[in-house]
């Protein structure tokens, strides 16, 4: 995950840690908390080399504490127990945990951040914002020297964020060091004295923000450092003009717990990308249309006709094919051969009266393998032994045999090397040109800019902006990711 990261932090300063999805921020936090050991390198506190064995040691011996992005609360246990989970023995009265004392003490801990909760309820019953504050109060209670806040503001409303900033300022005055991680750049710029930038597991540099003047210029600098420029990827040419003739898929006011009213159209001959920060609902759209989510409201129209899609079978029957980003787990029978993997989704077409006509099946699969240029010595090759790019082609082959009307792909090039990525781009473009449009979730900025004909940027469950693929202003695009 992390390649080479070195930096020095001073006492009494607030540091921002920023980077795109997968840049290595959370990994770094987990290393600092002793959750996994670094393969190489060293960590020093006040000039002395330390080895962090586990979170217990990080907290009580080295004074490092973190509020984790995932809110590490045990859902089936009470808030009070979660607050004191690592020190329950301090509530023993005659050998038994004194719940009343524990609850009273935990109430006091929560009050420090102004949180007033029934501490006897299970952690699963409180909101994400409350969870975030419970974690924060836990960390503050232990009075750490170095406090790491990983996306603690993400679920918080802005007025509470400002109160959090006040707390951070107080801690700073008391000589504490704070590492503040947030996807909201304006927060980072407002509160942090210095901004550390990670990209692809590398430390890119540190930007001084002590004066907090000219935030717009600093922001520009940070974004440039975060995204950088990569080389080596060649993308197929995009469609010459916007295709707006034959509507294939339309979503009208699609809603569920993640999606807050999605309207979109996909036309024949185009690749449409869903972009934005990770987890804004991009995958949820694909999975909803593919019938993988329950409790979805709104209309799904295919070629102008309303379709009821309650499960994956309905989707496939209608010609909607979804390709998961978890290729090895959800798309392939890894320990079986190429033949079976490509054949199974459409086997009924080649099995009159339920009996598979092997010769016919074989020739159809062989055609598909040569069409997609899947590099395999024979159809009997076990899929696990193929490269990532060829595996993805096997997945595509499987669905193409079933004659899709539209392809929904979640990060189609995830985990592939540069050469394989380019092949998948070309293949996608070829399919689109042949009449099968694609709605894809993309996270890599370069792909977002260079592959699709249209870009829909999502933020918190809605489509926040649309860009034409013909001319994309990269900075404007990235800017639109952040609120």
């Amino acid at each position: 995950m992390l390649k080479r990261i070195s930096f020095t932090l001073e006492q009494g300063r607030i540091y921002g840690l920023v980077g795109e999805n997968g840049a290595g921020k959370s990994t770094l936090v987990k290393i600092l908390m002793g959750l996994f050991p670094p393969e190489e390198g060293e960590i020093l506190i006040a000039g002395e080399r330390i080895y962090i064995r586990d979170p217990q040691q990080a907290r009580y011996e080295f004074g490092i504490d973190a509020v984790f992005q995932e809110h590490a609360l045990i859902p089936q246990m009470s808030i009070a127990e979660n607050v004191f989970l690592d020190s329950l023995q301090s509530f023993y009265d005659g050998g038994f945990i004194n719940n009343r004392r524990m609850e009273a003490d935990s109430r006091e801990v929560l009050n420090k951040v102004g949180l007033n909760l029934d501490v006897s309820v299970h952690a699963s019953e409180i909101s994400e914002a409350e969870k975030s504050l419970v974690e924060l109060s836990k960390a503050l209670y232990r009075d750490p020297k170095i406090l790491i806040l990983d996306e603690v503001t993400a679920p918080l409303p802005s007025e509470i964020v400002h109160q959090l900033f006040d707390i951070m300022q107080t801690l700073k005055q008391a000589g504490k060091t704070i590492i503040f991680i947030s996807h909201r750049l304006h927060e980072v710029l407002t509160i942090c004295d210095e901004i550390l930038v990670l990209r692809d597991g590398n430390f890119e540099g540190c930007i001084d923000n002590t004066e907090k003047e000219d935030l717009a210029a600093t922001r520009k600098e940070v974004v440039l450092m975060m995204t950088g420029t990569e080389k080596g990827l060649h993308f197929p040419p995009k469609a010459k003009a916007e295709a707006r003739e034959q509507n294939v898929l339309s979503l009208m006011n699609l809603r569920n717990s993640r999606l807050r009213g999605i309207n979109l159209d996909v036309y024949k001959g185009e690749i449409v990308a869903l972009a934005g920060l990770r987890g804004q609902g991009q995958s949820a759209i694909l999975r909803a249309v593919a019938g993988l989510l329950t409790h979805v409201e709104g209309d799904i129209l295919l070629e102008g006709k309303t379709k009821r899609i309650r499960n994956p079978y309905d989707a496939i029957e209608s010609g909607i094919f979804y390709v998961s980003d978890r290729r090895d787990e959800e798309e392939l029978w890894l320990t079986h051969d190429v033949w079976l993997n490509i054949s199974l989704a459409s086997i009924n077409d080649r099995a009159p009266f339920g009996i598979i006509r092997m010769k016919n099946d074989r020739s159809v699969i062989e055609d598909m393998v040569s069409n997609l240029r899947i590099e395999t010595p024979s159809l009997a090759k076990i899929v696990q032994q193929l490269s990532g790019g060829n595996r993805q082609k096997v997945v595509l082959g499987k669905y193409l045999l079933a004659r899709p009307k539209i392809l929904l792909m979640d990060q189609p090039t995830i985990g592939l090397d540069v050469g394989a990525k380019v092949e998948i781009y070309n293949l996608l473009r070829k399919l689109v040109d042949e009449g099968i449009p694609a709605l894809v979730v993309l996270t890599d900025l370069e792909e977002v800019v260079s592959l699709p004909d249209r870009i829909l940027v999502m933020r918190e469950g809605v489509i926040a902006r649309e860009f034409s693929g013909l001319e994309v202003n990269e900075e404007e695009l990235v800017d639109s990711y952040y609120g």
Partner: protein
Amino acid sequence: MANTHSGRTTLHGTSVVGKRLLALLSAHYIYILLVVFWIAASVASPYFRMMSTFSNIITSAVPISLIGFGQTLVVLSRGFDLSVGAVASMATAVASVTMVKGIIPSIILVLIFAVIIGAINGFGITKLRIDPFIMTLCMMFFLTGINQLIRPSPGGYIPDDFKGLLLYQVGDFPLTSFLILVVAAAVGFVILQKRKFGREIYAIGGEPEYARMSGINTDQTRVKVYIVSAVAAALGGLFIAARIGSGNAEAGASYLFDSFTTVFMGGTLVTGGVGGYSGTLGAALIISSIGRILQFLGINIWYHFIVKGVLLASVAGFQLYFARKGRRSG
């Protein structure tokens, strides 16, 4: 920083009463089931109303509930212990060979063996990262062989003092057995609800990674869980030895399945983190009642497997229903 919890108002008001009632019902349904069972059986067969029947049910529930005790802790921590039956057999075999030399030293020896077995299970699972299912399966095979070496054919010597103490009755009332059940229930409650160890088991079973992030030494706690499981199974085995009055290398085998049946029937979830010992205990009483009832109704004893299967499936189905309902109203 107040008022961040806008989505919680549904928790208050009428739905709370319904939720509480549901919680109460789903926590104690096993005892409601048990009472219904006993009433139905008493109506169906006059023999069932006799004290000796009650005595028999209590006595045969003891080994089931002791072995189920350890299994409850293991399942709560998201584990499996397939070696409990073999450990119980080991206890009968070792006791039948060594009790000649003295009762107390023999018991201590059995318990030392159990601690070692549990520690090896725990070590394999936490340090070598072997799946609990596989690790304890191997332990089961290993012990089954060892048991045959210690006691190739049923027999050996179990002193009358030992049997007399464990099977002590006042009239028809099985005093020792009853006390064992009461003590097990109390210990189960204290460990799981009132001690750090038990709360950590729930945390680990609920979210293992979060438990680690929160600063719990998850490996240490899990090793302890497997040691407790083996010790509880060995205690169950010693009681079996007293009942059958001898050692038998296969005496504990059937208790493996009963341990899982009681744990799951008692409402502990196979996914860990939810459940407790009171349910297991109630289920142990139900299981030992089934055999008696069928016997008095003159039904072939083999039917009790069918009854157990149907009962467990229905209880599991109801649990799922309650769980879904609970989630929706929450």
